[in-house]
């Protein structure tokens, strides 16, 4: 018989069993699922991509460490949340050739994300804006040329171009006569270099984390299975992007007859950061609605705003702004949706 005494006994109020899916586990899991996408970018565009990633992660983690130290808060570096923020900031940096993107851009992005977007509002759980997106937007406006130019082509495949797929769609650049006809050609009546397949497998210029839809989808599906990503957000985000770009996409393509219901929805979904945004940015627990219904509205809104910005704004890319705008609406959405309480008449929530 094993000896024990009352001092060995832990007394606590139930429940005594808890989920293993604790915040640090979640953060490290999400970070892990991003590795294929980043590795692909590293393979496709060369080692500068990996240096940018390492630097931005390091900056985020150090900022977290210093701030928690200065504020005398419990040290939270190991919970993986700063690591993930750094990783997501890196994902939002353009993939460039060696030395083209100055390293201060990801560094400042990460510092802004952690120090201002996260800790100035009270730390994990208190931020109203997705920290990584806040960091991206900050450096985007601070160093517009660095963030929008210098897209690297890849030595590994033919679609060498200095314009991203959305640039091509918007400004009709990169149209090379004699390219293989693609679905988008047929639909848009114009000639684009990347095919849907190129977009899906990531053989296009773009941001570090957004170029390979395949790698992101695999990671995203793993997170859905693990119930870390709540499926309704990516589903409704992507669906509404598809819907609105199909309806209105045809109106905004330069140099072709304008018509409703003629947009290339698949091109819109696969290009730019829609997949990255839908699975990794719009699903951040802290900055999204807490209820199922709210999350559907959130996803729909993100898609609609993404298409609106892409088609009518001066920016080619709309994902980060769309998500941040929807972040702002979260408290309002949360007010609208409350679950039906048991034992109260239908429709009576709180």
């Amino acid at each position, binding site marked *: 018989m094993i000896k024990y005494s009352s001092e060995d006994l832990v007394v606590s109020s*139930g429940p005594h*069993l808890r989920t293993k899916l604790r*915040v640090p586990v979640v953060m490290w899991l999400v970070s892990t699922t991003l590795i294929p996408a980043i590795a692909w970018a590293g393979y496709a565009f060369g080692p500068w991509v990996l240096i940018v990633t390492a630097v931005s992660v390091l900056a985020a983690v150090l900022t977290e460490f210093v701030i928690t130290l200065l504020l005398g808060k419990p040290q939270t570096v190991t919970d993986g949340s700063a690591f993930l923020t750094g990783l997501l900031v890196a994902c939002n940096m353009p993939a460039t050739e060696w030395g083209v993107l100055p390293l201060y851009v990801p560094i400042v992005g990460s510092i802004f994300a952690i120090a201002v977007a996260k800790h100035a509002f009270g730390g994990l759980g208190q931020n109203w804006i997705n920290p990584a997106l806040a960091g991206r937007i900050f450096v985007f406006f601070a160093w517009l040329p660095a963030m929008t130019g210098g897209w690297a082509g890849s030595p590994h495949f033919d679609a060498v171009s200095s314009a991203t797929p959305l640039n091509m769609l918007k400004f009709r650049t990169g149209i090379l006569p004699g390219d293989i006809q693609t679905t988008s050609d047929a639909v848009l009546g114009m000639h684009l270099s990347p095919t849907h397949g190129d977009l899906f497998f990531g053989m296009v210029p773009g941001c570090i984390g957004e170029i390979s839809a395949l790698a992101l989808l695999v990671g995203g599906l793993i997170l859905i299975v693990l119930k870390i990503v709540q499926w309704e957000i990516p589903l409704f985000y992507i669906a509404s992007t598809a819907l609105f770009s199909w309806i209105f996409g045809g109106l905004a393509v330069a140099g072709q007859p304008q018509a409703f219901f003629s947009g290339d929805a698949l091109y819109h979904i696969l290009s730019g950061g829609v997949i990255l945004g839908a699975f990794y940015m719009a699903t951040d627990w802290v900055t999204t609605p*807490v*209820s199922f219904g709210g999350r559907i509205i959130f996803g729909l809104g993100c898609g609609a705003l993404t298409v609106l910005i892409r088609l009518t704004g001066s920016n080619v890319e709309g994902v980060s702004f769309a998500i941040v705008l929807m972040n702002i609406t979260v408290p309002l959405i949360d007010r609208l949706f409350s*679950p039906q*309480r*048991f034992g109260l008449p239908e429709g009576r929530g*709180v």
Partner: protein
Amino acid sequence: MAQERTFHHGGMHPRDIGLDTMSSPIRNAFLPHFLYIPLLQHIGSPAEAVVSPGDIVSRGDVIGKASGYVSVDIHTPLPGRVVAIEDHVTATADKVPTVVIEVEGAFSLKGQRQENQQGWKSLSRDEILKRMKEKGLVGLGGATFPMHVKYAVPPGKKVTTLIVNAVECEPFLSADNRLVLEQADDLVTGIDIAMKTLGVDRTIVGFEADMPEAAKELQDRVKARRDIEVMIFAVKYPQGAEKQLIKAATGLEVPSGGLPMDVGVVVSNAGSLIALKEAIVDDKPLFERVVTVTGDAVQKPGNYKIVVGARVADILAEVGLKKKPARIILGGPMMGLAQYTDQVPVTKGTSGIMVLSRRRSAIYRHRPCVRCGKCIDVCPMGLMPLKLVTQIELVQDEAAKKLGMLDCIECGCCSAVCPSERHLAQTIKLGKLRHIAKKKEAAGD
């Protein structure tokens, strides 16, 4: 049998951590040398001791007499000599007057299976209620509400349906499952007595889908009965919670702040009805019960018939430990009460004893909410625990009440799924206690 039904919103399915005891038959536990029998084992006022130190008692003797309407008699399960009446710790950590008995002497044969199993039919409703109180019957699901109070339908209320809870209230407990499996005949008689007492002509017996053998045992016996229906529910915690069970069985929702009787339903746990049969037909007082003993620190987990008053230490000596215990829980893993001592006795309300090792006894840190909304998704009452807890932490009890604080059934789903390990259910319980204390204070002034 009906298709798989369940309540609508929320709930969860706790992982199976290999603690299942469903296939282990009920065994009689060893008899302890000393009994510590609390005079308060039920909701209501404590019984008054009717024995004094030095008295010799025999099995089934009344040692505590009910001290009011909401109170029941307390019996000794074993013969012996009363050595003391002292305050002793109970599962809720309160010290209550307890009769300490040194077990000795011969068993007199009280509480035996009667030849005449039909004799109870001549009893009137009031006689049955009186016997319930005298035989110390309480609900065995955990709340230990005196049965004679629950079954006395007040004038103006109409009860149409009896629901028998054969759904295990907590994950990893299987005492009810085993009881139904092994004593299905007694359960049918118990149901008949209960139906007569309530004056209802419809009974639904609810099982979970993972206990098909027990459901079949009962189904075989009530096939020809039109008034008893067996229903199988999805395996989902808290399917055994009263309100969720009623919802699943009848589609009716007990109104916020109301009782099952408000929708014409009385719910009794299967074990309680078997105890009812034994009390009314076999004249056996409620002085022992089936307890599931499990946990990763236990050598021989299983279902044991344990006498009231046996201390946890006695039980652990019998079932053996293979790891050093770090948590001893009376009840189940979700709503059970962690104990600070193994000297606490088994009472009528003890449905399980769970002994967890250090590895399964992490101390959970209350980290900041990350707003994942999982607590909202699992709340079977449709509450928003994250908002509730914020209000309770800010001592905004009125706001918390508006958010449904008092509707919380304390099932613990919210805490169990929280990735920030927040003390959600715990904080809500605290808020409810504070509310009750305030009300008492206001009433006292």
